């Protein structure tokens, strides 16, 4: 414990966004970022990342494999506000517009070791059928002002979301304290 600051513990995460299953879509890429509480601060590694575009595998699984590495270290004094990884997946629609295909968030694992997480992804739905059509037609689907809101509870009451597919992110997390 340093005299200067309060004693902290470290949370080291490394892992990868492995693959996704979006059976209807192809050529997707993925962004990740972290949402954490006030007591948390990243100390090393990248807090945000954007992956390459991947194509569907040709086999039956039709998996979209990124194997996109994540490596970040947080320090904190308080487990409250445990970091969540927020993933958002984008890809082109029929007209070639880049639209969002899914948002999802999951807490980082609490225990050290190798964890595999499957995150259900969803996208917000248009508020009306007409808007749904126009947004589809214009290629401007409703999306969150910030992907980070999916990790927050505030203000989510009125929103419709269409639950979409699954996606696997594998996280390994050596965990160390102090």
């Amino acid at each position: 414990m340093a005299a200067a600051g309060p004693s902290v513990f470290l949370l080291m995460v490394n892992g990868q966004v492995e693959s996704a299953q979006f059976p209807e879509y192809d050529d997707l890429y993925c962004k990740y970022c972290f949402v954490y509480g006030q007591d948390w601060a990243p100390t090393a590694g990248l807090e945000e990342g954007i992956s390459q575009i991947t194509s569907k595998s040709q086999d039956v699984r039709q998996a979209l494999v990124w194997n996109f590495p994540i490596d970040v270290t947080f320090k904190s004094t308080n487990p409250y506000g445990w970091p969540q990884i927020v993933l958002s997946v984008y890809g082109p629609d029929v007209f070639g517009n880049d639209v969002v295909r899914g948002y999802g968030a999951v807490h980082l694992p609490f225990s050290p070791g190798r964890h595999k997480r499957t995150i259900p992804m969803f996208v917000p739905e248009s508020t009306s059928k007409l808007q749904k059509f126009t947004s589809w037609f214009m290629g401007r689907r409703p999306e969150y002002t910030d992907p980070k809101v999916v990790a927050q509870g505030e203000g989510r009451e009125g929103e419709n979301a269409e639950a979409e597919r699954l996606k696997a992110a594998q996280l390994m997390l050596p965990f160390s304290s102090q």
Partner: protein
Amino acid sequence: MVSENPHLGNQPEPLQEDSDTRPLSMTTRRGPRSLPPIPSASRTGFAEFSMRERMREKLQAARSKAESTLLQEIPTPRPRRLQSPGEKELETEFGAEPGEEAQKTQQEDDSQSRSRVKFRDSVRKIKTKPPVPPGFPSAEEAYNFFTFNFDPEPEESEEKPKAKNRDGTTQEEEEGEEEEPPVQGIHKTDEQLLISATEAEAFLWGLDHAAADFVAVRPADYESAHVRLQMEKELLFVPSRLTVPTYKKLPENVQPRYLEDEGLYIGTRPDVPRTCQNIMENRLLTQEPGRRWFGDDGRIVALPNPIKPFPSRPPVLTQEQDFRAELETLYKKAVKYVHRSQHMIGSGDSPGNFQLDIDISGLIFTHHPCFSREHVLAAKLAQLYDQYLARHQRNKAKFLTDKLQALRNAVQTGLNPEKTHKSLDTTQKTINEYKSEIRQTRKLRDAEQEKDRMLLKTIIKVWKEMKSLREFQRFTNTPLKLVLRKEKVDQKADEEAYEAEIQAEISELLEEHMEEHEQKMEAYRAAYQQWKAWKKAQRAKKKKKKQAVEEHPEEEMGEPYPEEDPVKPVPPEPTDRALMEHQVRERAARSRRRPGEPLLVPELSLAGSVTPNEQCPRVEVLRREDVKRRSIYLKVIFNDKEVSRTDSRPLGADFRVHFGQIFNLQIFNWPESLTLQVYETVGHSGTTLLAEVFLPIPETTIVTGRAPIEEVEFSSNQHVTLDHEGVGSGMPFSFEADGSNQLILMTSGKVSNSVAWAIGENGIPLIPPLSQQNIGFRSTTPSSSVHVVANGRIPPFLCALKRADAISSIGTSGLTDLKKLAKWAAESKLDPNDPNNAPLMQLISVATSGESYVPDFFRLEQLQQEFNFVSDEELNRSKRFRLLCLRSQEVPEFRNYKQIPAYDREIMEKVFQDYEKWLRDRNVIETKDHIDPHRAMVAKYLQQVRESVINRFLIAKHHFLLSDLIVEEEVPNISSEGSGILGLSLFKLAEQKRPLRPRRKGRKKVTAQNLSDGDIKVLVNIIRAYDIPVRKPTASKFQQPSRSSRTFSEKHAASPTTHSPTHSADYPLGQVLVRPFVEVSFQRTICHTTTAEGPNPSWNEELELPFRAPNGDYSTSSLQSVKDDVFINIFDEVLYDVLEDDRERGSGIHTRIERHWLGCVKIPFSTIYFQAKIDGTFKIDIPPVLLGYSKERSMIIERGFDSVRSLSEGSYITLFITMEPQLVPGESVREKMSDVLKKFDSQEDEKLLQATEKFQAECALKFPHRQCLTTVTDISGKTVFITRYLKPLNPPQELLEGCPNNPQATAELVARYVSLIPFLPDAVSFAGICDLWSTSDQFLDLLAGDEEEHAVLLCNYFLSLGKKAWLVMGSAIPEGPTAYVLTREQSHYLIWNPCSGHFYGQFDTFCPLKSVGCLIGPDNIWFNIQRHDSPLRINFDVTKPKLWKSFFSRSLLYPGLSSVQPEELIYQRTDKAAAAELQDRIEKILKEKIMDWRPRHLTRWNRYCTSALRHFLPLLERSRGEDVEDDHRGELLKQLGDYRFSGFPLHMPYSELKPLIEAVYSTGVHNIDVPNVEFALAVYIHPYPKNVLSVWIYVASLIRNR
């Protein structure tokens, strides 16, 4: 080789020795290894051979050492001769020969070879083991024989015979042969080679050699399965699968015990296959002889099966599962919700028919309104008689008497110690106990006897009363008759017994008293002793005193006696026997039958006759008739529902009703309540509910046929008065003639009934299952296990119960009460080991261990206590918890507290100190920070208003709109202009994705919610400046300015005035006039541009300043309340040559850079935030006096822009300011608020409000971007029509007197006064929630407001000055939407900026007002419907309806709205002394600050200069900062001629200290680090009425010229 020769002689001997053993070995071994006796030995040359032999020998020596059996291995040459495939392989290594010698020498190393040999030996040992099949040697020979032929060498044939007889020959022969002179050199060498090759290999690969050796010689190795099995048998152990006989597993001569058979409970064993068990048993038996693994029954000891019957976790979904399956919605048929309370039978239970039999046999009234007096007495008598009978049956008195007798006997026997064998102590103790018990019993007996007697007496008394009543009324109503039967007693015996009893009692009492007396005497004696001692002491004292008194008689009186005088104890009186006897007798007489008195036995009979009606008086007849009219019936209410009713039966004369009905209630639900309602019908009139009788629900054991008839009492509180003999109910009546001794009786009675469960056809009682009935059971055990007999399924534990007959002992209902059950189990001493009882015992153990304790109250979070890891007090004491709480409550101090420490000890106490201080002081007005008490109060008030407003909208802040979270295309709307027609937007689709000429797209706006430090930047683009003041050359320092006096008309005349460019000639051509640069400071971050040259510089630079929100809170409300300003300072960079020696000028440059502040532009952050961008040319706020600089412009400029420029004074800078990313200003909050605001009521006329809405809608339709304001919110939140704010109001008299005959000067003075009131935007004070307008008096009281308040006040002043004035709502730079004041002079319009006090002509290009939305006068509103909205291009003539749309017109006449403004403004004169004090304090604080800012330098103050400045400042105030510069400069120069002086006065309204400090700081005066610099600072405060203060600060730095 040669070297080895000498050894040769020695070789044979050891060989000899070896050879002796050889035949042995040959016979024993005979493995395939030792194949043929090969003649090759003969072939080998001697030397080589011997050498080889030597090696072999050595090996053999080692071998012999190890094991004699292995020695036979020696047959060195032979194997080599063999042309086995292995050998052939080796032959290929002929080439290795040259290395052989070296190898051999190496071989000398014994240890090496030995170790190798050893290994080989061990290998061999294993290999030799297998037995040789018989007849093998012959085969061997045959093999040999054939192989010889294959040898290509001719020499071999020679050796053949040798080989042939080899077996027969002795070893000596062989040796001899071998020692033959080597003839066949080559062959020998061949052989040698062969050997050496193998040898070499062996040496090289120590291990491989051995292996190769063996492998080489052996044919395929075969071991028959049988042999292998044999072998394995020795090594391995295979436990048998057969069952082990029990006797093996038990110690000798022990019979197996089966605990289960003995009735002990043993758990279920885990399921293990029999074979596995057998194997294990066998293994255990062989492994360890100990039998500890086997239990008494001969089986392996095992714990009960640990496997739970049900999995405790839900099954985990496998990853591979199809995701569709997980997302799929399953349809489930709607299940009717079954209310699982005890009213219903669970869905799982069979819905049986349960039956409750209610037998109502009759009803007896113990009181009824129709009772006559006699009836009352009769009822009483009957009651008493019943009581008597009951007592008689019990006969308690007799029992107690007997007990007493027995006790007495016991005492008697106990007193004779010889009769008992007990020790004295115990007897004494028991006797004492007996005695006390005797006392007790006696008392009880006496009481009982007395009661008996009393009862008897009462019965007799009542009977007598009744008799007298009957006599009195001369008729009888009741057949009741009491007969007292006398039982004769033997008087003598009775008397004796009586006497004996009394005597015994007396003696006992005496004894008691004696004891008591003893004790008392004891106490007395002790007390007496004490008293005596005291008395003695007292006497002695007195004596002394007496003597003393004699000596000093006068003192006698003064001597007080000791206060406490112990009373002389009185000895207790001895008991008087006679007295006691008297007492005892008296008591006996009272409570006991006198001796000889006959025993009285009352008998009540109904033998009496009732007087017939005709003999009765009329009232009685009436009563009887009334009784006859009455009939009674009962309703049976089950679970609050009427299920049946009895027949209506007439009330008999004896007030008994017989029903005799049995109701069979077929029930479905568990009975909650069972009630009988007694109804009475009088004649044909309606029925009345007399009373309700609550019947107990029978226990489950009570079934029909066994149920006893019970009498349940009831009573009603009805009040009935009757007009006949009936006494009524609830009415006082009396038996006495005088009406005394009144009685009040209520209707009451008894219902005799029996309630029982019916028995079904097969003898099963029809009782609903217990599960419905018991909550406790349900919570502890699965309810399925508690289904009862009725269901046919009998749970195991109930079977157990049956066997143990628990039901019969505690009743079936006892099963429901676990406590009772446990108690019963404890009492009946159930065998806990009995397997039959196992489930029951388990149940009981669960029940009695607190786990399933069923509380009789409901608690919401019943496990809360368990989860409370710490007590509440301790939790509250925790600093960390407190910090977390405060943060989550969003207390401003902690709202964005980062990294709350993990431990309490790491939290500093001072974290809370500020907060606690704030909590304490929130209502205390702090004058320290504000210096001026009035402003402190105002600040406090504002703070409080703000707090309350903020608290009200904290919720709103947390409420997000959908648009805050989701970006979505707007709904395509045909009418709306924004998103366009649907078709139009579709048309847009056809546009190119990337047009060749892209149009600028609006920046994306960011909602300030996910931002953090460093995300937001303020971009300041500094483009150019005009008319920067230029340095005045020192040469012209005594020059008088040309424009010493300008008139007002000069300023505003449209025609250009001539500024005589007299000074332009003074500037030497080519000399740099000024080198300005711009420094932007924001939140103490400073950026500056490069230095440009000349008075009209062009920088065109972008500066980027990071923005930090207060406390890191980037929420909208927080951003709105940022009060920081962006300071844009213009400096002049001055280079001074400090080179002292001119000779060095050639070699070096030594300059000092100084910067002189020229002026600044201040833009509040809130303006940038709300405007998103600020673009325009601003007037630089240049101090009125800039020493060393002059505001002259060169001819060229004047020529170029004369017509427009000449009007405007001062310097200008063109700026573009914005924020990156663009933040959405808090509009959303306002929108949310509009709902709330609408709730604030308005006092305006409804029609007017509708008109305003209509007007606004119309205006918005035409010009959506023009500001149109009709109603505003006042400070209390009410909507007010805007014109009500405008009303002529008197300005301070002081200002009017200033220049009485110059209206324009007065106007300017007034404008200046208004501008001196500090500016505080509403957005800051109310965090952007709403725009509140305060009236002018409120504004003056608060001394803070934004543009509207300033403008309203100024407009009102102008109106009172008699000008035509309007409020202009429009937008200006940098303020954005704002309010200005328009006045009409004789021929032209003037636009006043109320916040700065400046005014502009209508056609002034530098007028900050850029667009005009509407004009507001005191009686109308005009909306600008002209094409343009720039003041330059519009016509202000409001009378033209084509240009101005007026609110009140002919269609809607002005209703004459009263003003919200006060009648008159009252101005207090500001306390001059206070102002002076404030002035001193500010000066002191500023000086301290400047010294603080220069931590590394000495700050000297030039007092002389300071005083000079101080004198100058009032002058400046008087002239309002104009036209004094040159005089002042001259004066200063006169006084401080040898100083280089740079400085300037700052002027601003006073609100708080902080802006002053900021302003001084931003000028950068303190940045001079010339060593001998001196400073001067003077502050002057000019007080205006109403505490408006004008502050002047003169800061200067002086450098002494050398």
